[in-house]
């Protein structure tokens, strides 16, 4: 776990430095120059943070679903701890993705919120997380709470793809991959980036994923300790 922690710190530091310091020029000549994308300019740099954070918010939800399903099969309380930890971190990253996204939207599309399908789907993901924790706080015993919240997470997880993959194809939007977008023909956006940008981009993706794994581990250990202390009291 220590190596994961350090690797994520190194990668994210690299992304912060490289993503901000490398100049953007119209015709990049060397490896240390990014192309200047017309209409985006320097605001494009936020892609190194926005996309990895959005990816982790979905990853957190998937991990939470996986352990939720596992809980329903095994009824091990430890799986519920893992599930709720992943959901909590996912919600944090989901908030970060919404914030970075709406900042970026302000400076390229003109307002903080545009009701683009992709923006709507991150809002729905945020609402799912909120509903999940509201449900958990309204249920009394550990066993019932773990069981019902796992079922709800799976139900929400099954209806979310309608938003993420199907809706943008039907209703037009601003993100790449939307209905009127001529270049991106699938909802899964194709990457049109030069090699050096791709390198920083994937460092960011891996760095933030490792950060998630490390934070998840810390959270799980804390909750396990809390649970053990509670059990001792009785």
């Amino acid at each position: 776990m220590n190596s994961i922690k350090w690797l994520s710190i190194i990668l994210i530091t690299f992304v912060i430095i490289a993503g901000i310091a490398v100049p953007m020029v119209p015709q990049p000549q060397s490896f240390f120059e990014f192309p200047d994308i017309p209409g985006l300019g320097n605001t494009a740099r936020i892609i190194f943070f926005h996309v990895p954070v959005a990816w982790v918010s979905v990853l957190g939800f998937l991990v939470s679903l996986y352990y939720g399903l596992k809980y329903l099969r095994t009824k091990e309380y430890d799986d519920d701890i893992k599930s709720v930890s992943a959901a909590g971190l996912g919600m944090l990253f989901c908030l970060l993705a919404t914030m970075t996204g709406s900042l970026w939207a302000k400076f390229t599309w003109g307002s903080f919120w545009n009701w683009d399908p992709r923006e709507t789907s991150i809002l729905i993901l945020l609402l799912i997380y909120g509903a999940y924790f509201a449900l958990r706080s309204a249920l009394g015993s550990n066993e019932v709470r773990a069981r019902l919240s796992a079922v709800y997470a799976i139900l929400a997880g099954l209806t979310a793809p309608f938003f993420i993959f199907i809706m943008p194809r039907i209703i037009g939007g601003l993100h790449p991959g939307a209905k009127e977008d001529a270049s991106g023909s699938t909802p899964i956006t194709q990457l049109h980036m030069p090699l050096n940008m791709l390198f920083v981009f994937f460092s960011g993706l891996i760095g933030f994923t490792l950060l998630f794994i490390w934070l998840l581990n810390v959270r799980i250990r804390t909750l396990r300790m809390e649970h053990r202390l509670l059990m001792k009291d009785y």
Partner: protein
Amino acid sequence: MNSLLCIWAVAVKDVRSELRVRYALNALLMFVVTSIAVLVIALGDSGLNPEIMSALFWIVILFSAMSGLSRIFVSEEERGTTLVLQLVASPSAVYFGKLIFNCGLTLVLSSAVSLLYVIAFPAFIIRSGAVFLCTVFLGSLGFASASTMIAAIIAKAQAKNTLYTVLAFPVIAPLLITVIHTTALSIQGGTWGETVPQFQIMIGYLCVVVGFSSIMFDFVWKD
């Protein structure tokens, strides 16, 4: 055959106990009438565009359905009949019986809303009736199927009614956006060809939710 009879018995039982007190039906129909009256007073006969008309139409259906459908399992908890039902019927029979009851209730509600809408708004002219009817039918079934499962989840929780809306919205939202979109198209005179993707979403949604609920209902129902 036996399980089908069992499902039918649960649905009939719910219809009977509903008709005995008429709690949900009367209150819900009054809710529909009042909210449409508010709309008529607020809007008058101003010509609204199809998007707003269809959004208001589905908002009335959504909120009346939300207040009615959540009671299906809560009423069992309140009357203390959950244990009996767990003893006499299999979980899948209970689920499908309740689903049938909820579907019926939503269809009654949405047809009442459609009828009142046509009477109250002269500007509400639907150019492609078949598309509209199909949308209302599939949309109501979709609402009912998602709400049945969520109603089962919240029956065990505190602050049931508030929680119900919070839990239901993210699950229902994809369906809601699709039906509002399709209804607007049907008012404008959209053909079947134009609305095929929307109907694919609605049918897909229905299949996913009912399929999932029938598998997972055991975990929610059995203590």
